[in-house]
């Protein structure tokens, strides 16, 4: 597991929920390798924010992208080489604020990638402003009287727009998170895990631990999943929805691999010659 760590200095606050996510992904990778998903085929992307520092710490190939845009990088990687497995890390500001459209469209397309949403419900790295998942009343430097916008429900939103694997985990339940990560990465299609991630400088672990509960059973239909997602409180953990739908790249070009089966120059010029015949 040590080779999954880089030499980068870790600058997350001591006690940050991101450490739990980091541990769980490091635990998940050997399990995935046992199942035949090789490490060298895994590619990670991160946006910008506290979540994204995982890119520097995790010794896997990938793109440290722009704020909100890494899910488009993920889609581009998958489309060009569908043999790769994409793990897309995002904060809630990154994925549901600046990058909301890209997140929703990746799910709409059922792009084959795993979207890990580090939900700390705050813009931590930029000094505590309210985020798309902050509760009404959150007092940050941009909302001194308290936020008055209703937060998104990430789980029902993602089920609605077309994700085919949707779960909620908690950075304090590392085993559950590890097992869910393995299932999500194995899933062919858009898998989404919202991870409750306490940002220690802004929120307390007890705020989470005292409220955490698990789903008693996994809903079996999309309609049921939506109802459960809407009615259960935001500390409810478990897999809310799993569905089967053809992944985007398969619908786009079947069994092609654009980068691996790229046509030779000769073949291209010959075909161009045919097009350019008078």
């Amino acid at each position, binding site marked *: 597991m040590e080779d999954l760590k*880089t030499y980068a200095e870790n600058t997350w606050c001591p006690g940050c929920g991101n450490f739990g996510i980091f541990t769980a992904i490091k635990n998940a990778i050997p399990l995935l390798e046992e199942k035949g998903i090789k490490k060298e085929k895994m590619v990670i992307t991160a946006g910008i924010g506290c979540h994204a520092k995982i890119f520097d710490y995790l010794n*896997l190939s990938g793109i440290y992208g722009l704020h909100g845009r890494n899910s488009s990088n993920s889609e*581009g990687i*998958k489309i*060009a*080489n569908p043999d790769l497995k994409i793990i897309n890390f995002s904060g809630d500001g990154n994925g549901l604020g600046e990058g909301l459209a*890209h997140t929703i469209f990746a799910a709409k397309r059922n792009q084959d990638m795993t979207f890990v949403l580090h939900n700390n419900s705050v813009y931590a790295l930029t000094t505590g402003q309210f985020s798309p998942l902050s509760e009404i009343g959150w007092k940050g430097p941009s909302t001194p009287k308290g936020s008055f916008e209703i937060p998104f429900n990430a789980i029902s939103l993602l089920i609605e727009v077309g994700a085919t694997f949707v779960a909620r985990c908690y950075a304090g339940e590392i085993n559950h998170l590890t097992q869910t990560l393995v299932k999500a990465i194995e899933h062919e299609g858009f898998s989404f895990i919202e991870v409750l991630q306490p940002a220690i400088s802004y929120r307390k672990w007890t705020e989470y631990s005292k409220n955490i509960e698990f789903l008693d059973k996994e809903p079996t239909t999309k309609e049921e999943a939506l109802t459960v997602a809407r009615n259960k409180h935001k500390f409810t953990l478990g897999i809310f929805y799993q569905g089967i739908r053809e992944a985007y790249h398969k619908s786009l070009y079947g069994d092609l691999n654009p980068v691996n089966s790229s046509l030779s120059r000769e073949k291209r010029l010959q075909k161009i010659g045919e097009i350019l015949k008078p």
Partner: protein
Amino acid sequence: MTKNVFTFLVGGKAGEGVKKAGSVAAHLFSSMGRYVFQMDDYMSLIRGGHNFSVVSTSPNWISSHYMNANLIVNFDKRSCETHMNDTAKDGLTFFNSDEQDDAEGIGIPLTSESEKYPMKNLMYGVGAVAILASTIGFKKEEMNQVIKRQYPRGIDDNISFANMIYDMVNSECENKFPLERGYKERRIISGNESICLGAVAGGLDVYYAYPMTPASTILHFLAKQAENFGLAVVHAESEIAVINMAIGSAFTGAKAMVGTSGGGFALMTEGFSLAGITETPILIVLSQRPGPATGVPTYTEQADLSFALSAGHGDFLRIVASPATVEEAYYLTSEMLELVWKFQTPGILLTDKHLSESSMTVDIDIERAKWAEPKMHEGSDYKRYLGTEDGISPMLFPPSKEIIKWNSYEHDEFGITTENADMITFMHDKRDKKLNALIEDLKERETVNIIWGENPTNVFAYGSTYMSVIEAINFGKINPTIIQPIYLNPLPIWELKQFKNQENIVVEQSSTGQLTSLLREKAGLNIKSTIKRYDGRPFDPIELSSKIKEVL
């Protein structure tokens, strides 16, 4: 009008097959072995309005349409009014006599005759082709062959309708314009089609775009050809997604291209800058239309030059080049793909509506296309941003046992984020070194196209305006030296400096004279005057030749 040029203009409402009639006429001329230039003028609407297509043809190479037409066919009253002054001396104008009876020219009852058929006014274009065929002395059988090939829906009705119109015209002006035939039939393609073929020839694997005129037909052409060439072609949710997807694809080694116009490129600039710091090879086709903002979507301009040269925040190398003709679009697109992969930096192929959407007969030497191939890493201990003499780090793509990290933050050689002062300086210097390497490389290539003349004043133009200038020079029988910078960044000063102390004029489609400023500021050229047009329309060679004569 030069003696050998013949121009056909057809005008009517959107949805009446105006553009198709222009394109069929172009094919008909090409089948006679003649050269063709077709320009389509259309409004941003789906039905109605006024559209027209102008096709000029000559036994010699022709690089512009002429607005002064020998034969005009107007489907409606608005066309008659619009093109009232466009008929050449000894030219003919046909109008739809069911729409009006007082127009100048020859009336043909297009509406009442076409109403005998189920497709009705969809047949107007067939009628226009029949009028053309008759006046240029095409035999009926020859015309029928063309109609069969070009209008495959309802062939019998089309032929019957065309024959009737042909006979009506024939009695009065049969073979009024006998056209000299050439020796070779050539393929007609648009600028955008040529860009597509050049990209494919250069190694394109994936194309991303959000529809925007005048770049949309690149998306349409490549989507249609995706299976044939084994490409992934994706219409994404926004230009922001488009460029970030393309960067993701380039990370896997796929040759990626995106296409848009000014407004879409504005959205791409954040990702353009990401390509700068991650050193991503990516080619952007920027086809200009009149701005600012939404501007005039279906018309032409060259006012995004300054924007293209400086787009994206931060210091990084941007390669910008602009093709002047439909043929050059093929070669230059492949060359730009080669260069962005060689130097691992983003590049812009800068074009405009007039080149993108006009069509020409072409003689493309397919084999002359370049091929994109990056410098690859071998062995272990891979470092994505390894410092090298020329600043170019070898590439490696997943899957690999080596770790490949591309980073939007400033980073160390391995790709890990850094805030270290020495490393920040080191990485800036590393990326900046690529400029010198690029300049040395470009010195071995054709970066400026010069047509030597005898007049002491030189004429500068880039992009499609070069074609207008060439046609104007030919028409006006004037003989200045014509200089077309192909590369705009880095600007080939090594080629341009020879014109420093001479008299220069610039022809461009920008109200503030962006090319003029560039040549003055970067190349230190003395520019005597600038001939500008910024009404969305391309230059007409007759008007332009007299304007050039005034300032020579």
